[in-house]
């Protein structure tokens, strides 16, 4: 049975979507069949990293939630990003984007969506596409939709940016995840400033939250330049950032 992994952060701008896309790509490179669901209804955007323009997708997650389509109809194979990377035994990548249509975004925000429907949809998707991992790119902060995603996840990966606001908010998220009895919670520190402090930072975060830290990613100019244009780990297989992401992917796979 595949694993549902929610990738979440308390604040926006932590690089959550970027990390999600990279982890998904690295898992696929390990030969896994990976699905990605963009539940960041308010500001969907992960499809850009997979070069999937809104004109190319007919259905989005919103359409499934409103009963307009089946879940697999909203899933798009984006394994194309793996091509040309000289990968052997690569798995596959499937993306369910969030709707870019403003009216639908508003409707979802107004009415919310049903947790049972979302869960059954994820289960169905995993079965139909035989997914080993389903990564959910959540909306930042703590709200009903976020808690819903976390609640049905096997693994919660919290992306943390090292500043006081994020420290405080993440503590709340970690505790709520415990109360929701999420089986496994990990953290990934992104946009840390001084690489010499990374070991101390990792230890400090782990001892504070009692949650394993999969890695510490620097505030990298290279990553920022690449931005939302490509999957960084695939484009830069030898980059130190890629090494950290690979280790994180392996750890998630092993969990």
């Amino acid at each position: 049975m595949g694993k549902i992994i929610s990738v979440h952060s308390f604040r926006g701008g932590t690089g959550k979507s970027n990390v999600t896309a990279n982890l998904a790509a690295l898992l696929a490179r390990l030969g896994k069949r990976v699905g990605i669901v963009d539940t960041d209804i308010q500001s969907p955007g992960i499809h850009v990293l997979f070069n999937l323009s809104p004109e190319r997708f007919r259905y989005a997650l919103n359409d499934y939630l409103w009963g307009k389509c089946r879940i697999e109809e909203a899933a798009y194979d984006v394994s194309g990003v793996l091509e040309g990377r000289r990968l052997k035994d690569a798995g596959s990548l499937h993306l369910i984007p969030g709707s870019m249509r403003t009216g639908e975004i508003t409707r979802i925000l107004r009415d919310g969506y049903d947790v049972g429907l979302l869960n059954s949809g994820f289960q169905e998707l995993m079965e139909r596409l035989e997914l080993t991992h389903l990564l959910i790119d959540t909306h930042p902060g703590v709200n009903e939709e976020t808690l819903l995603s976390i609640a049905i996840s096997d693994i919660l990966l919290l992306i943390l940016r090292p500043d006081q606001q994020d420290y405080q908010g993440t503590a709340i998220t970690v505790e709520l995840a415990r109360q929701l009895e999420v089986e496994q919670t990990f953290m990934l520190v992104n946009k840390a400033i001084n690489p010499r402090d990374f070991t101390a930072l990792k230890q400090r975060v782990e001892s504070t939250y009692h949650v394993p830290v999969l890695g510490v990613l620097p505030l990298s100019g290279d990553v920022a330049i690449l931005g939302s244009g490509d999957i960084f780990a695939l484009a830069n297989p030898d980059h130190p950032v890629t090494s950290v992401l690979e280790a994180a992917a392996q750890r998630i796979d092993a969990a």
Partner: protein
Amino acid sequence: MTSIRVVFPLIFALQIFVAVGLTGAIAYVSHMREAQDTAKEILELIGNMIDDQLYRFLSQPIDLTQVYADSLRGRPDLPLDDLLEPRLVKKLSNGVWTQAQMTRWANLSIANSAGQNLRFDRREYGKKVVKVSDIRRGGGVEWRLLENYGKGGMPLEVQEAAYDPRTEAYYRDALAKGGLVVSPIHFSPLLQGSAPVVTVAEPVYDAHGRPRAVVSSDIYLAGIGRYLQNLHLPNSSIAFLFFAEGHLIAGSRGSFPGPIAGRLPLATASSDPIIRATAGYIGERYGFLAVPDAESFRYVRGEQHNYVHTDHLLTDRQFAGLGLDWRLAVVIEESDLIENLITGIHSAAWLSLGLLVLAVAVGSWTAAGMIRPILTLGKVAAALEKDELDARHLDIRQLERDTRRRNEFGELAHVFLRMVLEVRARHDLLEAQLEQLRVNIDEADTQAKIRQIADTEFFADLKAKATRIREERKRAAEPSAQAFAEHDP
């Protein structure tokens, strides 16, 4: 520590002050010296002019005496035993007036060894007179008009006191020397009021070397005074003649006093304040009034600066060897002589002083402008040290303006600003690093917010649903696992 803000402008201003001040002072002293030299030259010129004029004035009686004595020598046959004989007087007078016609006060005396004295002279109204005396007839002096002499009648004046020329110093000196002499000053009884005179005298001898006569001419000191008064000297100036021993001979001031109790007045006791002060100063400077030849100097009387030129008079040509010890002093007030020059120098000095103040002010302003970037650097560095520097800080704005200077200060400001920004960037980075390691969590706040969420029905429902979903998924997974186990050998 003394601030560069004070020291630098001070040194700068001091340098300007010394440079400009020294130049100004040297120029002032130089111009003053030049003015004083000019004054001395003018005085010397006046002194020489007076000396020259006096020479002409005093050489006339000498010329008259010498020429007349020569004419008598040229007529050895002319008997001089009886000088008062009318025909002889007539003959002798012709030569006198020929010689003396140019000079109003000219006089000539002829004395013989018999004690007779014949004097050709003028009365005050200009009429030619003879003054005759014969010691053998009592020595009284009779004044008669020349044109009436020998025609009888009453004399114009009679001076009862006996006059014997042989007892006069000039007579004795002339015979003793056997040549031209000038007598000491004496009071001639042949003049009204017994005026002070000096007498030029020369003896005339016969073929056997016996004295035939002594020809002489008196020089009136009052005449010298009048002569000096007629010179066109500056208003505040005075020229006076004096002896080395201190007696005043004549002066250019109208109020010049006559002899007192038969003696000439002392220059130091003169009623004229300038003569008195000048003589006093000369006495202090040279000891008595024995001034050396051609000396010019300046002295202060009260608030009055006077220039003085002194010189020996009548020491050359005909007067050489006559033993005259006359001195001339010409005194001119500085204000009168070089007032315009001094005023010009003072104006230039004030202008220089004004320029000096201006130069010091401009120098100080320039120095302040030059050190301002350094002060700004200091302030920015201090603010940086205290961590009080931000982009809105006035000094950093000033530093940014200083970077626009097109000189070394601009380069320095540019480098310093870059360094400050670098330090600030590093500082901010360090702050961020410290911040990311400072994992502080407000437990009370965290728990409060968790309760806000966890205590809601939504959360309880979600938790229940999540539990149920997991159980369903677990159950759904179990048959597969069980089947897998059954097929596992």
